[in-house]
């Protein structure tokens, strides 16, 4: 657990602590949040319940994006069918009404699902800031285990409370396997 601490905070992305289990990471995330760190990020190979909440992230906007996507899909599908069947290409079938709304339900439903589903995937990827092939955390060799069996907590240098020496000693108090400096 030996790390050289550079004095220039801006030159590094933050400090990374590695943990062995989801439980240790969750506990550490809670403690970091309580200690007043705001720019904290936790990394795990699978979703850990309560971890995002522990670092102060309670609500995401994916449901809103999906709602908007679904509404756009449904409304535009119905409007398109109305426009086609009533306004631009009306076909008179034995005097039946042009605005035959029961027949329009299926396409409206399918396009609601299509747009909502696409919005959910694209919205999730975009809100996550992906694709992002480069990220400073990848500079730490041990981080390759973040998709395997190791758990990481990063306190970023942009945090107002960040101080290389103090944050380092705070992280070592959490009992990590190792602490590494994340070059920016």
């Amino acid at each position, binding site marked *: 657990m030996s790390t050289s601490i550079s004095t220039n905070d801006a030159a590094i992305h933050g400090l990374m602590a590695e943990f062995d289990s989801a439980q240790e990471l969750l506990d550490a995330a809670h403690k970091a949040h309580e200690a007043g760190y705001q720019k904290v990020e936790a990394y795990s*190979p699978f979703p850990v319940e309560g971890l995002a909440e522990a670092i102060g992230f309670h609500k995401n906007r994916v449901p809103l994006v999906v709602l908007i996507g*679904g509404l756009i899909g449904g409304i535009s599908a119905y409007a398109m069918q109305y426009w086609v069947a009533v306004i631009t290409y009306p076909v008179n079938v034995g005097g039946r009404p042009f605005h035959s709304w029961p027949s329009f339900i299926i396409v409206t439903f399918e396009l609601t699902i299509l747009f909502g589903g696409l919005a959910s995937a694209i919205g999730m990827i975009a809100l996550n800031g992906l694709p992002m092939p480069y990220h400073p955390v990848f500079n730490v060799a041990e981080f390759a285990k973040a998709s395997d069996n190791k758990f990481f907590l990063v306190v970023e240098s942009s945090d107002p409370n960040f101080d290389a020496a103090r944050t380092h000693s705070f992280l070592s108090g959490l009992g990590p396997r190792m602490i590494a400096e994340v070059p920016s």
Partner: protein
Amino acid sequence: MATNTQIPAADRRVPVIAPGYTFSTIGEKISNIVLSRPVSLGWIVGFLIVFGMMNMLMMCLGYLFIKGTGIWGINIPIGWGFAIVNFVWWIGIGHAGTLISAILCLLRQAWRNSINRFAEAMTLFAVACAGIFPLAHTGRPWLAYWLFPYPNTMRYWPNFRSPLVWDVVAVSTYGTISLVFWFVGLIPDFATLRDKSESVWVQRIYGLLAMGWRGSARHWHRYETAYLLLAGLATPLVLSVHTVVSFDFAVGIVPGWHTTIFPPYFVAGAIYSGFAMVVCLAIPIRAIYGLKDFITERHLENAAKVMLATGLIVAYGYFMEAFMGWYSGSQFDSFLLWNRLHGPYRYVYLALLLCNIGIPQVFWLKKFRVSTFWLWIISFVVLVGMWLERFIIVVVSLSRDFLTSSWGQYYPTKWDWMTFAGTIGLFLTAMWLFVRILPMISIFEMRTLLPESHAHEPAEVKQ
């Protein structure tokens, strides 16, 4: 995502994952199949066979494009023939994949985690096979884009009151959403493969697909929300797709088609045949790739139970058709029933009853649910039976219309059979490649099945 996965201690059933695995060994076992397992002779020989079958499909389609649909056995009155039989059969098979990935996800059935990935792959490949048939059946597939609404110089627009247009929208939405769902599920596993791989090029390919996924807690939070919403959207979607397919029939007035039982009975039949295909694929795959610890007896038994249940719904559908043939008092409906039992296609109908209703009843006995041999055989029988069901629905009804002057017979040609076999080749070729280039079991979802994946809130922060 299944989070409530702990199995009660009193549960004496076979576990969904064999004991002794860690986060790391799960990842290794699944990713090694892709990254380091050598290509075996058996894989190559099998691939050549299925790839050959796929090329037969290409030749059939090539010849079809030159000569037209006259090379098939379709005629008037039986204008639909194999093309629609195979379309409905394939699209039905796809339904089990979405049921496993979406509906069982919403129901928090943790056992789905080890079979959802390849069931979703199966869905995609089955939809691809299904899509070929109506496309080719249009006769002029190079003009198939006329089915979509777009401003054109003919100033023509599709008729949105037509079930065939509904079908285009439903199936293309289904294909798209299945692909999106599958890809979203794969993102974290692409990251695992990227980090595990030792070759730079392999790292780059999986890295590109992972889009820089790094497993951040905020990302997982959004990811789980998006996945759950996708499951919530895919659930009504999958029920709607076969409903719309059944509307292709039920909205018409042909005897045997014009019934309200069609939507639920089609959906149940789709899931029935789909689970049969899942079992037919899972049994050899888990044996060849040593995945019996992940796809356990429990999965196979559950699949057998789902087949038993959906098979009974299908049986109810058959019974209702027969009952309405008598109860409606319509001479055409009662003739249809008579014709199914005594007409020229009676052997097909009897084979259908045997395959779909008779033989699968052995699943009431545990012995048959847990024996991989019998499970595989009976699943295959169900696949055949469900194909026969679509044959009966399409061909028997069309061959005996209201007027005796418009009666006819349908004889499939060699091109019909070769095209059908060719799509099986396409399906298997895609499966063959899939098991070697993508993780066929969801790595991160398997990890959540381990008890140590569940962290508990520390006492002091609970307010």
